């Protein structure tokens, strides 16, 4: 459980030009939840990540991770429960062989050799990299590198996995496969996932979407609930996926599309259902 209460954070506190990054954020994320946090640059989402892993500490309010408050002195306990994967794998991978890098975290925990080997093996397997343990990271594709980074985070056996825009540098199909792998990990391992992104199409794949703007939490709900607020989202500079935008316009013109429509497949289904409906038959005569 991640509990965030009245959290505020400012860079350069105490100085005149203090820069507020988060203002009064309240958020609870239960164990095993699959959540996307969305917002454009400067909305405070990356600051939130740093606060969650005790790289920064709250200026006001508090964060608790499984009951452990995030404050100086507790950082290592907090970091054993939350792992983070960052945007550019080149910046976060420490060693040059896949297995060696995945082992870096467990090695830091001082685990015995057999335990480390077991964790490396199971993490690589979970990401579909079991054949790549002895490969050099520089020879891998960006998507594979990011998988190595996730395997490294997984080897820490965290309660929550935080993904800080890990798909920004990846082509769309690769990004989609990565997210579906993370979904599998979430389902099978019960590990909570917090995916930071600025892509609405990606956010639609999650159970819950949290929208941030200028350091505040502005919307929180299922993707369907969030996408109903098309105008609100546009006013803070975010856009909905094309299918959702089209549905919004169709409904505004009185086309009675039923149900929650999040992507093209949903839209096709809704249109097919409409074509079958008595109302449509009457219209087309």
């Amino acid at each position, binding site marked *: 459980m991640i509990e965030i209460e009245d959290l505020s954070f400012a860079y350069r506190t105490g100085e005149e030009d203090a820069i507020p990054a988060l203002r009064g954020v309240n958020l609870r994320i239960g164990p095993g939840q699959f959540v996307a946090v969305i917002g454009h640059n400067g909305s405070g989402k990356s600051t939130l990540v*740093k606060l969650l*892993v005790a*790289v920064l500490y709250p200026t006001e309010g508090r964060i608790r991770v499984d009951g452990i408050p995030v404050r100086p002195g507790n*950082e*290592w306990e907090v*970091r*054993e429960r*939350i*792992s*983070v994967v*960052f945007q*550019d794998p*080149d*910046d*976060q991978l*420490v*060693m*040059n*062989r896949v*297995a*060696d890098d995945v*082992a*870096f*975290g*467990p*090695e*830091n*925990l*001082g*685990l*015995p*050799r057999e335990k*480390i*080997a077991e964790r*490396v093996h199971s993490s690589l397997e979970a990401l579909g990299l079991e054949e790549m343990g002895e490969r*050099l990271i*520089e020879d891998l594709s960006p998507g594979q590198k990011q998988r190595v980074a996730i395997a*490294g*985070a997984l080897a*820490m056996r965290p309660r929550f996995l935080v993904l800080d825009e890990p798909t920004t540098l990846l082509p769309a199909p690769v990004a989609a496969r990565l997210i579906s792998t993370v979904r599998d990990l979430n389902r099978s391992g019960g590990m909570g996932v917090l995916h930071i992104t600025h892509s609405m199409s990606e956010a639609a794949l999650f159970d819950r979407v949290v929208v941030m703007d200028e350091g505040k939490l502005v919307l929180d709900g299922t993707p369907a609930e969030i996408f109903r607020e098309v105008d609100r989202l546009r006013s803070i500079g975010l856009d909905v996926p094309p299918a959702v935008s089209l549905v919004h316009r169709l409904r505004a013109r009185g086309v009675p599309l039923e149900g929650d429509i999040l992507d093209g497949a949903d839209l096709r289904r809704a249109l097919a259902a409409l074509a079958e409906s008595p109302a449509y038959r009457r219209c087309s005569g």
Partner: protein
Amino acid sequence: MFELQRNVIFGQFVDTGSPVHRMDPRLKLAAAFVLIVASFLIDTFAGYALVLPLLVLIHVLSRVPFGYLLRGSRFFLGFLVFILVFQVLFYPGEVQPSNVLWSWGVLSVSTTGIRFAAIVGLRVLLLYYVTTMLMLTTSLVDLTNALELVFRPLQRLRVPVNEMVLVFVIAIKFVPIFIEEIERLAKAQTARGVPFDEGGAIKRARRIGRLLVPIFISGFNRADVLTTAMNVRSYRGGRGRTKLRRMHASAGDWTALVLIISWVLVAWQFPASGWL
């Protein structure tokens, strides 16, 4: 400018899985150390001629393509030749008049100077070859583990050995990443009309200077992310860390080390003993 990646070999690792790669990193480091000492001790052409077959043997065993090494050493070799020409022209030692081939003011070319420069060149080449091959054939983890072991005695003097070794290893890891970034920046600037391949040496150097600022900025950003990432992965210094890899020195590794030591001893002493 756009071929940097092929022309800079420092910090690269070429994984061929050869016996040289598989050699126990502690013994490999010891062997490299022996050869580095040799580069200081040996001061005859005959000595270097004797070392050469050993290097050829190591190279063949390592299966590192020689063309790759040569291409990657172009900058270094060019620089070395440049330095050695100066070494000859400004040779400071005593020269017998009969050995002077050409002189003009303070500049002179003498057989003594050429001989001296050639030996210096061979020393540097051996030193360069050994360190480069050590990097090319040793993965970062192996290098880390071996260096930590070698410098462990310093820990008693409260030198943070593990941390320093990790800093060194990470620096090596980032070399290819930065080279890639310099290339990207140079291409981006060329696309906007900066002519990297034109003009005199000073103009060119100034243009390269323009790459430095963005490189530094991105370097600090990367360092910041890496620090956070390492902290998040519970890195809190070398204390209490355990290791996945077990080091194992085989009989073959020991034989190789003994062979290298004796070979070097012969190359050092044999020419001086007057047999040649």
